[in-house]
């Protein structure tokens, strides 16, 4: 029989990852709920997961590709921007949903015990399903434009993992802050818009002057997008000068996010 001792925790309580593992089925169920519910009572249903990035890509191709004539590393602009839009869309919708997830789940937090990490984690992870659907379109587009997959395709899951870590790190910070400070809800759209322009989705990373490139690489989404392009589109050198700093920053975001989340977690039920 399990014995639990409940008492005030002073100082650092650990990351609680084994407790999270004990509740891994709950995480699956929460992801499953998010996926089931997302497109309920919509006419087009899951088609939205494809239409959203696809239509955005069409707009970008018209304005940035055709009218502005942006460079796209020698690839058709639609493919070039779509490969960037996939991880960006995953990041953006994951962070948006996760940032409000604890507040939206307040009825759970104030009534039932389980590791609170499960809530933002499930919000971020459920975006993987949309990513997968939108990815199918990419395969179609590559066939249409006759772009052969790069031999570096094996790197794709790694960069997806990097995107997941970044989104989770940011989400842990924002969701925990949002419990006390609802300012996050107002801040988030601006934050994401600025972040979008700091990420090479619509343009190629070499547009950024050489001198600022190392600073630019501190944005972990830069590493994700450039890494995805490296993994998906034809031969080109591995952009390690962009990717290594991104990985480091993503790791810092994730670990610091976990620590902040765990230290504030114990007051969620009282404050939310």
């Amino acid at each position: 029989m399990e014995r639990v001792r409940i008492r005030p925790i002073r100082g650092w309580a650990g990351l609680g990852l084994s407790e999270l593992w004990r509740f891994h089925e709950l995480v699956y169920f929460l992801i499953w709920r998010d996926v089931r519910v997302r497109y309920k009572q919509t006419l087009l249903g899951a088609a939205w997961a494809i239409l959203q990035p696809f239509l955005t890509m069409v707009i970008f191709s018209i304005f940035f590709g055709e009218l502005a004539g942006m460079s796209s590393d020698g690839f058709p602009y639609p493919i070039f921007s779509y490969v960037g839009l996939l991880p960006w869309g995953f990041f953006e919708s994951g962070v948006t949903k996760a940032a409000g997830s604890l507040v939206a789940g307040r009825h759970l937090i104030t009534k039932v015990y389980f590791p609170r990490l499960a809530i933002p984690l499930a919000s971020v992870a459920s975006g993987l399903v949309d990513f997968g659907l939108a990815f199918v379109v990419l395969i179609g587009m590559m066939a249409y434009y006759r772009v052969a997959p790069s031999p570096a395709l094996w790197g794709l899951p790694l960069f997806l993992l990097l995107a997941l870590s970044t989104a989770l790190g940011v989400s842990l910070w924002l969701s925990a802050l949002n419990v006390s400070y609802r300012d996050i809800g107002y801040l988030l759209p601006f934050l994401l818009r600025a972040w979008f322009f700091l990420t090479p989705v619509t343009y190629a990373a070499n547009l950024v002057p050489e001198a600022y490139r190392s600073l630019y690489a501190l944005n972990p989404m830069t590493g994700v997008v450039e890494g995805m392009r490296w993994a998906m589109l034809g031969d080109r050198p591995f952009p390690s000068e962009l990717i290594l700093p991104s990985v480091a920053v993503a790791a810092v975001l994730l670990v610091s996010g976990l620590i902040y989340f765990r230290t504030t977690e114990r007051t969620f039920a009282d404050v939310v």
Partner: protein
Amino acid sequence: MTPAIRVTDLGKRYRLGQLRGAQRTLRDRLALTGRIPRSQDGWIWALRHVNFDLEPGTVLGVIGRNGAGKSTLLKILCRVTEPTEGQAEIAGRVGSLLEVGTGFHPELSGRENIYLNGAILGMRRREIESRFDEIVDFAEVEEFLETPVKHYSSGMYLRLAFAVAAHLDPEILLVDEVLAVGDVEFQRKCLGKMGDVAQAGRTVLFVSHNMSAILRLTNQAIVMDRGSISFQGPTARAVDTYLATGGGQAGERDWQGDPRAEAAAPFRPLRLRVLNSAGRLSESLPSIDPITVEFEYQLAADIPGLRVGLYLATAQGEPLFASFDLDEARRFEQMPVRRAGRYRSRCHIPANWLNEGGYLVGVNASAFRIRSYFSDEHALRFSVDGTGAPGSQWPERRAGPFRPRLDWEILAEADSGHADVR
């Protein structure tokens, strides 16, 4: 025998603002930096110096007025919130019915919600699968398993929610006032299920305002008052103690120095009185005269949508009715905002209404679906004296809380020796 629950010097402190649910924004926080934000008077102990041991298989009733710390105690025991001091040791899995239907999603079907809710309450997938049929059976929702629960009637919704929680099969079950809702048949079923749980040697903590349910279901009880245990022992004595003291002063009640009254700002309850037909304070009132209940309060600011109301319950805590001063739609339209100031809301209970016996008056001040400012369900008690009431020529006790004077007619058939009596 190791106790199922051992609570040692447990305490929980809240910031007053937290209790009120006020939201902090970054600006407030920045404005506070450099000052001392945590002055002692901004805190309130919701629970302090609480100690008890429970043997496995005990069914413990927890009674006390609103804000006495009952729910805080349960929340700590099911690990929703952390204590500020002391500790609790728990042997076994804890299941809670703090609010049934937690985590139900309206768009998902009954079947899907059983799995989701089960997982949230801590069941493994295999456990849910093995009990699935039992749950559906108990909830009586077979035909609607594939229907989204947003189309369920409230009764069906509640049955399903309770069924999932009740089949969690925990060693320790925490129950908070679930029985206040649902029809009588369903309540009986829930009580039966709780009885089964206790029979199986499980430990149950049952919080309720309903004294007859407490008396029926528990043999041990604790009475909580202002965050600590004021009595612990056999249920019958606990209920007596509670009704005699905690259940409100007789005749008049004020909330001087009560932290709950402070937390209700800008609403401030002042006093509650029961008046006889001559307008005098009284704690024993004749059944044959009208009774006036007067609630005096002060508003520090204008409050939109405020309604002030009364609850009347029997001495055992069984609700009789609730009534609000703006129940008349016309009046509600006339008073969309109640201006700052001092008020008295008076409710007139007609003559020849209540049976002899003890009654509890509760008060509530709220803006519907916006905020509940203040609520004290057992604020005051008074007794009704049956002298001269209809039928008092027979010295017998009439059952039920009402003793109305009703119109009767006796219609005599032609061959009887009487004329009609009207």
